[in-house]
């Protein structure tokens, strides 16, 4: 079980989604949160995700960028406490950039 973090805008996300497996989680932070805006245009990218993958975005980073309302329903907003919990829950963390 891997926590995949994305903190940049760009193709890091595509890279991560290609390597994600059942039971993994994905956490968007910093500029990585802009990925939530690409959802409507890029449904095929997200449709390929296994159902068991949990998706999180860091609430403070969404708020700072004014895009909190753009987060899709299958995402959960995470605060810093959640970030720490996720970091210790999963076997390893891969920071895809």
């Amino acid at each position, binding site marked *: 079980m891997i926590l995949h973090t994305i903190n940049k805008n760009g193709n890091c996300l595509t890279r991560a989604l*290609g390597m994600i497996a059942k039971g993994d989680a994905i956490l968007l932070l910093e500029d990585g949160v802009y990925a939530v805006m690409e959802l409507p245009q890029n449904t095929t990218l997200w449709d390929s995700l296994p159902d068991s993958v949990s998706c999180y975005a860091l609430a403070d980073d969404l708020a700072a960028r004014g895009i909190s309302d753009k987060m899709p329903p299958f995402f959960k907003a995470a605060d810093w406490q959640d970030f720490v919990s996720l970091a210790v829950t999963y076997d390893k963390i*891969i920071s895809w950039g």
Partner: protein
Amino acid sequence: MSITESFLIIATTSPYGSHQPRAALDMALTAAAFEQDVSIVFMDAAVLQLLKGQSTASGTLKNVGKMIPALTLYEVKSVYVHQPSATHYDLSDLDYVEDMEAIDDSRLKTLVEMSNHVMVF
């Protein structure tokens, strides 16, 4: 006391646009020097690091292509090229500084799962 862990380094950037490619190679060589089990994968634009004929004679840059053969020499266990990325850039074995082992997405995924540490540069 020595503990051996498996490291997977994933290089993703082209050779001269940033410090990232050097950081990836340094990480791989350093971990291997400490007798860790190290594999490196060249993915996306990082496949461009593997091209032969890189010339940095003007002196300001250090030749990344020349460092690739050093990886196995310094005990990096496996050096892979991500085949879908190579295909994207229309590269074949003939284009590389040395023979490369190609891996597809599913093998890369297995490597990601099996490695103790995965670092993306």
